[in-house]
Each structure stands twice: as structure tokens, then as C-alpha cells.
């Protein structure tokens, strides 16, 4: 019998307290999983810099609520991009897809007069259709997704103009749609959300711990999970207190968080998520293992565009209108940058759904902070580009060191 097998590296956390947690993290670093630490650190640095330079306005309740409103649309689009990037593919059309779907929603709601929920459902279906079409085209004809979605980028951009028609702008008045971003949770509802979130963070490791022990498997120390749960809960409560001091938690932020949590669960625990990671890691191995690679690819592209559509809907809800610039400009690049800054590898197979949230937080913080300082868009774009370059470089360097350390 092998003695080495009886040990699980996660058990080293039982070395005790901080040292064990650090040892575990080092182990993960060595296997190429940098986790969420870099993005957390950069968030703290960014927040500190802007807090100081903006004379305390950056972390003020009013600005934080604005930040959450700015995050919702981009973060939702980023969820889809994380999925596609995990496959080792890319979707360049996500930005304009969000625009054209928002335009479709606006036209069905205002010009056709359909009720809000129906218009939103049509927009989501259109998104799924766009993604399925692009995914199928790329898969069945063997064309790189870069090219197919580049074509989509141009085509759906034209779609926005055609759908909106001559006026170029449609103002959304339907209460259901405007309340998606216009509703704020305060008081008990807000704290209830924070409590729910904390319970979710704490309960996962507990359940796993109990089931592993019941099955006679090695159990990792609960210390790490406890520290993590407490830290996240404290952050959640602080955030809610800060947000409640102004308008409260935007419903669109709740939607973003819920989508991230659900998709994170799918990625980690569901067979579908495992298939995505497997295809991103080694598509040929996945195919030989009997995974329906083509169908999974098409499904992921459909999901990506559907999240883009939902992001477009949330954006329209916030701006109360859809115009010709919907989904243009920085929307796509910010969504990709967010995913990559959050630790999703461009080479596929590595990263977590939380990248969509944390990466978007970084991108929007930079953008928001520079607006507070009244810096020009030129500087804003250059700084965003710099941050993106640094994070991709970290990904690449980690990858190389992992390849070197693999044997």
C-alpha cells in the first residue's frame, strides 16, 4: 500500500492556523492556480489610491452605489466571456450582441407594446440564438471562434442600427424593465441578502467536510474555510452598510451576484462545468472520454450571448434607453479584461466564475475613480490597457513556470 496516497495536500492546512493556510496557498500557486489573491490585492491598491486622491469621495456611499450600478451590465457580460474563455475560445461579439438584444427588447417593448417580461424574454432568446448560431458555425465548419465572432461583431453592430431604425434611440418606459436597475434594497431586505450570502459561503465547506468524514476520506481543516467565511461575511456586511447609507443595494447587483453564484456552482459541481474545463484543458482527451465536445461548445456560446443579452437589458434599464452606441466601444474589451484580470486564462481550462465579479470590480473602479478625478478618457483607456497587460503577463509567466515545474 502506498503511504503517500493517504495524504491529501489540503490536509497540510492542519499544520495549524496561518502557516497551514499559507502552505496550502503555496501548493496551489505551484500548481499554477493563482486564485483570487492578485485581483483582491489590486482592488485594495486601486481603492486606496482613489480614496486618497479623491479626498475620500471614492469609498463614499454615493459613489459606491454608482459603482455597483456601473458594474451590473459589464459584469453580466463578463460571466459569459468567462465561460467561453474557459473553453479556450473567445467571443468578440458579446458587446454588440448585448446591444442588439437590448435594442430588440426596447423595440418590442416600446414600438410593439409587448409587456416588459415578454420583451426581456425575447431579448434573451435572441441572445441565445446569436450565440448558438456562432458556436455552431465555428464548430461545424472548423473556423476559429475569433473569426466567426469577429464577423458577428460587425454584423450585430449593424443589427443595432437596423433594429433601432431611423430615430436611433428608443426610450424605455416599461416599469418592469426600468425597475431592474432602478430598484434598491434597503433595511432588512439588504441585510437579509448579506446574511444569505454569508450562509452560502459558510455552508459549502461545512457540507463537504461532513460528507468527506462520513465517507472516511481525509478532511481538510475547517480553519481555512472559517477564516474565509468570516472574512467574506465581514466584507458583505460592510458593503451593505455602506450601500444602505445611500440608495441601497441595486437589484441589478443582486442579479449579477446571483448569476455568478449559480454559474460558479455549475462550473465546480455540475458535469456540464467539468466538461467545459476538460475541453479547455485538452479537447482531444475530452472527445475520447466521450464528452460531446461540439454540443458543449455550442451550448457555451449560446449561454455567453444570453448573458450578454441580459447584460444589455440591465444596461438599458439603467440608462432608460437604448441608442446606437449600445454595446459598442469599451463594452467588449472591458468584459474580456475583467475575466482575464480575475484570473481566467486565455489559453482555456483555468479560472473561476468569480473572475467576472472581481475583475469587473477592478475595471469599473479604475474607470469610476478616474471620472471622479475628472481625468480624460484618453488616460482612462491607457491605464485600463496597462492593467490588462500586466495581468495577462502574470498569467503567461505563471503558465510558463508551471510548465517548467511540471516534471
Amino acid at each position, binding site marked *: 500500500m502506498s503511504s503517500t496516497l493517504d495524504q491529501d495536500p489540503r490536509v497540510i492546512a492542519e499544520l495549524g492556523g496561518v502557516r497551514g493556510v499559507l502552505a496550502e496557498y503555496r501548493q496551489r500557486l505551484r500548481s499554477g492556480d493563482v486564485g483570487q489573491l492578485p485581483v483582491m490585492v489590486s482592488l485594495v491598491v486601486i481603492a486606496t489610491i482613489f480614496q486618497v486622491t479623491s479626498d475620500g469621495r471614492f469609498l463614499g456611499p454615493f459613489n459606491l452605489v454608482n459603482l455597483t450600478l456601473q458594474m451590473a451590465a459589464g459584469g453580466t457580460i463578463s460571466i459569459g466571456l468567462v465561460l467561453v474563455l474557459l473553453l479556450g475560445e473567445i467571443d468578440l461579439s458579446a458587446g454588440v450582441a448585448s446591444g442588439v438584444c437590448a435594442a430588440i427588447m426596447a423595440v418590442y417593448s416600446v414600438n410593439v407594446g409587448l409587456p416588459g417580461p415578454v420583451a426581456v424574454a425575447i431579448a434573451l432568446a435572441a441572445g441565445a440564438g446569436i450565440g448558438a448560431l456562432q458556436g455552431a458555425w465555428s464548430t461545424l465548419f472548423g473556423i476559429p471562434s475569433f473569426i466567426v465572432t469577429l464577423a458577428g461583431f460587425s454584423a450585430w453592430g449593424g443589427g443595432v442600427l437596423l433594429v433601432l431604425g431611423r430615430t436611433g434611440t428608443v426610450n424605455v418606459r416599461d416599469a418592469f424593465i426600468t425597475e431592474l436597475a432602478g430598484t434598491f434594497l434597503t433595511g432588512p431586505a439588504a441585510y437579509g441578502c448579506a446574511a444569505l450570502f454569508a450562509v452560502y459561503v459558510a455552508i459549502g465547506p461545512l457540507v463537504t467536510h461532513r460528507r468527506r468524514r462520513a465517507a472516511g*476520506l481525509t478532511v481538510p481543516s475547517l480553519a481555512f474555510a472559517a477564516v474565509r467565511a468570516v472574512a467574506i461575511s465581514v466584507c458583505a456586511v460592510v458593503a451593505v452598510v455602506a450601500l444602505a447609507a445611500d440608495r441601497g443595494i441595486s437589484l441589478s447587483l443582486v442579479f449579477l451576484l446571483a448569476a455568478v453564484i449559480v454559474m460558479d456552482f455549475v462550473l465546480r459541481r455540475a458535469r456540464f462545468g467539468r466538461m467545459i474545463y476538460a475541453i479547455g484543458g485538452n479537447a482531444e482527451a475530452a472527445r475520447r472520454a466521450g*464528452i460531446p465536445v461540439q454540443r458543449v461548445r455550442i451550448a457555451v456560446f449560446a449561454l455567453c450571448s444570453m448573458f450578454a443579452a441580459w447584460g444589455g437589458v440591465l444596461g438599458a434599464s439603467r440608462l432608460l434607453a437604448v441608442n446606437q452606441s449600445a454595446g459598442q466601444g469599451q463594452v467588449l474589451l472591458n468584459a474580456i479584461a475583467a475575466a482575464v484580470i480575475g484570473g481566467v486564462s486565455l489559453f482555456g481550462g483555468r479560472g473561476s466564475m468569480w473572475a467576472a465579479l472581481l475583475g469587473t470590480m477592478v475595471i469599473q473602479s479604475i474607470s469610476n475613480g478616474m471620472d471622479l478625478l475628472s481625468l480624460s478618457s484618453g488616460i482612462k483607456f491607457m491605464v485600463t490597457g496597462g492593467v490588462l497587460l500586466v495581468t495577462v503577463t502574470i498569467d503567461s509567466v505563471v503558465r510558463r513556470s508551471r510548465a517548467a515545474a511540471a516534471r
Partner: protein
Amino acid sequence: MASPYRGTSDPAARRPLLELHGVSKRFGAVQALEDVEFSVFPGEVVALVGDNGAGKSTLIKIISGIYRADRGTIRWQGKQVAIATPNDSTGLGIATVYQDLALCDNLDVVANLFLGRELATPGGPLGVMDEVAMERRAVEVLRRLSVKIPSVRIPIAALSGGQRQSVAVARSVLGDNKVVILDEPTAALGMAQTHEVLELIKRLRAQGLGVVLISHNLANVYEVADRITVLRLGRYVGTYDARATSREQLIAFMTGAASNSGEVPTVSEGAIGHRETPA
């Protein structure tokens, strides 16, 4: 370890798991295989040797369902079968470990062992995996094969070449497979790792599996094989008892320097399949 399948009078052990008779395959003008005979018994290692272009890969691909034989019969546990697709082959209980191993570097050992056949949580929501059950079975199978890896929860990327090979082999054992085909399992490995994999092959044999080993390395072949089937230029040269055939003779058969003119006994299929051998 002595195999319970060796030296017994168990009729199941005397019957080959897999038999190929008169198998031929032609690609256009090239006769890749002609009248090849091949068999594997439970609890034995059959080496498949031959120079480049001898037809080893073609034969393996016929067994694993990637190619279809033009002529010849395939029997599985005595019954004639048709292997038209890879699924037919795996359905019978034949697992093939190709040289590239087909592992996902980014996933951990458990995930790789269960790739494509993850266990679902009983009573849980649709498609949710039962990580605990998978890890238990993974640990079980790795222990049974004495595979030494630091943990079942580290990504394949962090393992050595020998450990990766072991994981790929363990995966083939995890299903209810009876025959495991190993394509050049030691080609890219150092000495210690090669030893590790050869020991693993012996343990597969001890567990009653039929192992088909394709290797260029005759030292490895002699270390683990019970019988050796030689192919040359797509033709079946013969199947020899590994203990009764010298390396020089084997090389002569492989290169065609000697035809089998009686100085070395050709063993018919199964004649030594259940012979007692020191493991």
C-alpha cells in the same frame, strides 16, 4: 504477487478474452495487415512487437474500433463480435491507453479518472457530481494498483511522466475493463518511472486483466511479457513464449533475418496463457 488466474484449472482462465483470426486490412495499395493471429488471456501480458510499419498500430486500431478489419474474425470470450466503433470496443471491456495519454492537465487526478463518466449525486439536482464517491473510488483503485502520487486532488500538470502514465492506466482499469492495451507506455520515461509503469503492468496481470503491450523496448518487453507476438511488414510472423525465445531470435524475427523454421517453437494461442510464471 501470484495471480489467482495462473496455474488454475479455472476454465474461464483457459479461454482467451480476445482472439483475432486471419485479420487483414488494406489501405489502398498498401496491405497493412495480412492474416494476423492474436489473442490475450486473462492474467497475462502479451507484447506486440515489430519494426516501424509492421502493422502494430493498425492492429491496435482494429481492436479499439478505430479501423474495421477487411477480413478475419474477432472473438470476445469465445463469442464472435464485430467491433465497428470505439464505443463497441469500450463496451466489450477493452481500454486503450494511447501514447499521448489523453489526460487534461488542468484537472485533478479524480476528475481525470472519471472524465466523461462522472458519478452523479444520488437524489441531488440533475448533473451534480458526487465528488466524495468519485474520490473514494479513485483512492481505492490507485491503492489497488499501488500507484504512488502525492494526492488525488492535484492537477495532472503537477505529476511526473510516470505518474501520468499510471493515472492513464488506472483510468482504464476503473471501468469494468478486462483487456488493457498500452501503446508505448514507457517511451518517454526515465528509468525509475519506467520501472514504476512495468510494476503497474505486472499488477494489472495479477488482477486478472489481459494486457497488450506495444513497445520498441525489448528489455521492457522481456521484463513483463508472457507471450510475444511478432509482426513484420503487416504479416504475422508468430507468437513466442517470452521465456523460451532469446532476444537475438526475436530481433531476427522482427527484421526478417530469420524465418521461423522450427528452431524456436511457435506457441499457439493460449498454450502458455495460464502458465505459472514468477511475477
